[in-house]
């Protein structure tokens, strides 16, 4: 039973990782790929970005909330051993930040690959010219920060739930 719940949790974590990665990839792609000036098209891209951000935050929220509720007794125990609320909060945030960072790394790689492929179609071999990639560094940094920001935002509520959980939970029940 423990194994299947672990698998379930792994699956959920992987899915969240994927949404965060997709979001970062998408963002980086939009930042690097040349977008048309057509306002309707711009609006559509904006909408899609907002949507993917929301999906990611919701995914992180769900994953971290599950992670916290599944560990009620463990968190209670740690509090019995003297952990402060702030420590519990921080450890949940850290776990989620790790998720965000991993997602961002994969997302950035994915985004760059995507941009290169699309660039090849549109600009041919020109895509390999340095000029095509101006300002790449800050674009990568923006994508990474967005990935981290997403997970922080999504983890804030679960972290607060964990921090406020009463230590009595540790005493509860058999298995």
């Amino acid at each position, binding site marked *: 039973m423990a194994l299947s719940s672990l698998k379930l949790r792994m699956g959920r974590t992987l899915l969240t990782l994927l949404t965060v990665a997709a979001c970062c990839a998408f963002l980086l792609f939009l930042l690097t790929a040349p977008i048309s000036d057509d306002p309707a098209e711009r609006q559509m891209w904006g909408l899609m970005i907002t949507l993917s951000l929301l999906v990611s935050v919701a995914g992180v929220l769900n994953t971290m909330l599950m992670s916290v509720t599944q560990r009620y007794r463990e968190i209670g125990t740690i*509090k019995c051993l003297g952990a402060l609320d702030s420590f519990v909060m921080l450890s949940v945030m850290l776990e989620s930040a790790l998720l965000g960072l991993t997602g961002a790394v994969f997302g950035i790689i994915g985004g760059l690959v995507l941009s290169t492929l699309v660039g090849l179609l549109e600009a041919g071999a020109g895509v390999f010219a340095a000029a095509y990639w101006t300002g790449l560094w800050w674009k990568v940094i923006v994508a990474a920060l967005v990935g981290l920001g997403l997970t922080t935002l999504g983890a804030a509520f679960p972290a607060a739930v964990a921090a406020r959980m009463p230590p*009595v939970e540790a005493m509860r029940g058999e298995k």
Partner: protein
Amino acid sequence: MPEAAAKTKADYWMADLSQAVDCTVMARGVEVVYEMGSEKIHALQGVDAQIFTGEYISIMGPSGSGKTTFFNVVGGLMKPSAGSVYIDEIDIAQLDAGELAWLRCRKIGYIFQSYNIVKVMTALENVMLPMLFAGVPQDEAQNRAVEILTRVGLGDRFLHTPKELSGGQQQRVAIARAFANKPAIILADEPTANLDLHTGEEIIALMKEMNREEGVTVICSTHDHKMLDISDRIMWMEDGRVKKLARRDEVDIKIDEFEEENKA
């Protein structure tokens, strides 16, 4: 300890209070009411108890009699609906969240029925945890953890995680963890309930040895009458009240009697 042949509970308190014995825990008129929707459950209905420094006290009573609730209140895990709990003469209701965390960290060691070893950590890390919370430097905490794990008989199991340990071994880790910060009180809520009889006896014997060696007050709840032999005093609970509190030598002959009485 009172030498008078106290018979009733009231006599007991009079006797206790007249003695200038160090008292680690004092409960006065503790009541706990759980609210489940519109229903109210009176889990503790006025519990008075004095627990002396360094003694090993067993708490007995049928399931649902309020043992766990009593532990929660004494351990600073729950605020009573009425009455107060003093630990080393401090009314714990007066403590703020940070002070309570400090109390749980340094003053109290908890041992649980289901061990509660942190799954992703090794035995060593589990024992180090409360010391790190107490601000003990890493290497010092590690040395003490090695020392105390060796003491509880797990000298060759430092790096095992709970799933690689038997129930009895996990409970030994829990004992080492509870004693890590040299607390004043050990609260053990049915520590042997998930163990077979033999392992349970070993665990109780270990707790008794630690109680003697370290001079720590041990409060341990159990269903098993065999565990009574090593107790200094025994407290019986029923329906959220203290039914009886007596020294071991006073109940010597009465255990069978008491069991008979309880069956009726």
